[in-house]
């Protein structure tokens, strides 16, 4: 192989301008691929991160009770015309400890937390706001959904009569840390709680309704003592949520919904975005490969006499084949290096020039060493593949003919 590398590199060096031009061309193509991949991957992961910032990866709830179907007598006479769905809210997971044990044994599960959730209202003076009471052990809920990270003021360390409110809710009620607020539900008069923290979950609905308290306090307030209304689960790899959700449903008999299922529209948007990015990358790659192939075809024509001489001197067809395949691969690899640098420069330029009002970058580029490694591998393989046709042509040259006619 040493001879083939030597000849390939010498041939390329001999036609420096031609080599430089095609490497630049390939580099621009690779830069486009690197830039678009970094941009789309960054946008998607930031979107997912924002979505999952306030959502668990999997929500496990009691099995939904279905109404019985319309009953018909023989002959088609309708016996029961209308069947109402049973009230779902009142239901809770009775044996949540057992279910949670099963969930925690699943390999992809990183953390889980049982919650007591229910509707209620917060009253202060003449103001009454509808709220969502969410009770869970603070540390455990924080391991599933980042709460502490989103605290505006105070702390999320609730027990007894401590609560943490969404930022909008606190504003509407006019309370801050240390103030008191009455919470009640449809079935209980409730009691007075002390605000320990105010949290900004990034979504208006959550900020307007969330009241976080201890698991036990919420169980009492929402009227489900000893029971949990849901189990929230965090998985190690976010795209494993769907499989884990199915496994949970299968093993516990409970209803389980992954974040992907809950955000089906987002997932559709992301996958169509990924598909269009793949199309762009594919066509850029094809044009890069065609560019390399055309340069090598010309090179084979220019060098056919030299190929003939090499063959006459005893160089095997395979040697000639490899000389041109190596050239394709080297052009691809060199183009990938140039393109990676160019792509990286572009992302840094965009980062520096286009920023949000607070100075943070507008485009959340995702640049990883893997991206450059992948660009190198893909471009090199594309180069070698592009070299196949010209290389086969060179290897098939009749030496006598090539020497005589060039």
């Amino acid at each position, binding site marked *: 192989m040493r001879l083939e590398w030597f000849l390939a590199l010498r041939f390329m060096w001999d036609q420096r301008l031609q080599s430089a031009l095609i490497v630049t061309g390939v580099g621009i193509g690779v830069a486009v691929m690197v830039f678009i991949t970094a941009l789309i991957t960054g946008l998607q992961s930031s979107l997912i991160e924002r979505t999952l910032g306030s959502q668990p990866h999997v929500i496990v709830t009691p099995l939904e009770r279905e109404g019985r179907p319309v009953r018909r007598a023989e002959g088609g006479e309708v016996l029961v015309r209308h069947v109402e769905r049973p009230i779902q809210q009142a239901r809770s997971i009775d044996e949540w400890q057992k279910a949670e044990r099963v969930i925690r044994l699943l390999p992809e599960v990183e953390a889980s937390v049982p919650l007591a959730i229910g509707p209620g209202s917060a009253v202060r003076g003449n103001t009454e706001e509808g709220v969502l009471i969410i009770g869970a052990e603070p540390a455990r809920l924080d391991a599933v959904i980042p709460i502490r990270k989103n605290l505006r003021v105070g702390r999320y360390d609730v027990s007894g009569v401590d609560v943490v409110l969404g930022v909008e809710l606190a504003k509407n009620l006019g309370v801050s840390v240390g103030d008191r607020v009455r919470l009640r539900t449809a079935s209980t008069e409730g009691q007075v709680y002390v605000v320990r923290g105010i949290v900004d979950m990034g979504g208006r609905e959550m900020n307007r309704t969330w009241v976080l308290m201890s698991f036990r306090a919420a169980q009492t307030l929402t009227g489900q003592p000893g029971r949990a209304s849901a189990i929230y689960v965090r998985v190690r790899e976010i795209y494993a949520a769907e499989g884990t959700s199915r496994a949970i449903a299968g093993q516990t008999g409970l209803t389980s919904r992954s974040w992907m299922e809950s955000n089906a529209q987002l997932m559709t948007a992301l996958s169509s975005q990924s598909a269009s990015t793949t199309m762009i990358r594919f066509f850029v790659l094809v044009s890069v490969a065609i560019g390399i192939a055309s340069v090598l075809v010309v090179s084979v024509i220019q060098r056919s006499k030299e190929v003939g001489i090499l063959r006459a001197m*005893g160089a*095997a067809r395979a040697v000639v084949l490899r000389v041109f395949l190596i050239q394709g691969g080297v052009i691809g690899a060199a183009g990938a290096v140039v393109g990676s640098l160019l792509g990286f420069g572009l992302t840094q330029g965009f980062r520096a020039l286009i920023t949000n009002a607070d100075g943070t970058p507008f485009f959340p580029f995702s640049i990883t060493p893997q991206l450059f490694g992948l660009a190198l591998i893909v471009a090199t393989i594309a180069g070698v593949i592009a070299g196949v046709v010209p290389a086969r042509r060179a290897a098939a040259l009749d030496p006598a003919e090539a020497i005589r006619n060039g």
Partner: protein
Amino acid sequence: MAEATTTDDENVVLKLAGITKAFEAAGSIVEVLHGIDLELRRGELCALTGPSGSGKTTLLNIIGLLAKPTSGALWIAGQETSRLDDAALTKLRSRHLGFVFQFHHLIGALSCAENVAMPLLIRGGVRPSAALAKATDALEQVGLADRASARPAQLSGGQQQRVAVARALVADPALLLADEPTGNLDTANSDAVFELLRRLNRDRGTGVIVVTHDSRIAERCDSRVEIVDGWVHDDSRWKVEV
């Protein structure tokens, strides 16, 4: 024509028996070689002459294993070649044959020393540094040691052809085929290149076939085979020495 020698004779570097070559042209078969018998011994310098279109180049291509004969047998260094595939023929070329062409055909991308080292590198089994050292020795023998690192384009026509001779001989082939090696040179350079071939042929015992139109060159060879219309017209081997 010399009496056919068996291939067991290790002094026979080339033997042709009944070589014919036919081409298909415009729907009909045209035979350009009609049964050539030829033998070349070690250390023999033979001129292959004949008018243009007589079949010299076709014969040289067959001898150089660059074309297959339609019928007949060909031995190179004792090995019969008609049943060998392309890979085996390629290997045989790299082991036993050297070529000098009319237009030197050096590889422009390589230095003179690298051009000369190429047959050694192709044959393999030698370190590149050793191949380059041997190439520099070969260049010294043709008087161009000082131009080892020059590119072929920086040399005169005569110098380029001397580099081509060094390249053809560096791997010590059993048989050297020279197709009009002086055809593109002036008289002085032509004489210099021929003398070089002659000297190396004497010193190393390489069998050499020189295709030439130049009667001055042909007369200075050990023997002369004239091809006319695809036949051996005259085989005057009056002073073959082994």
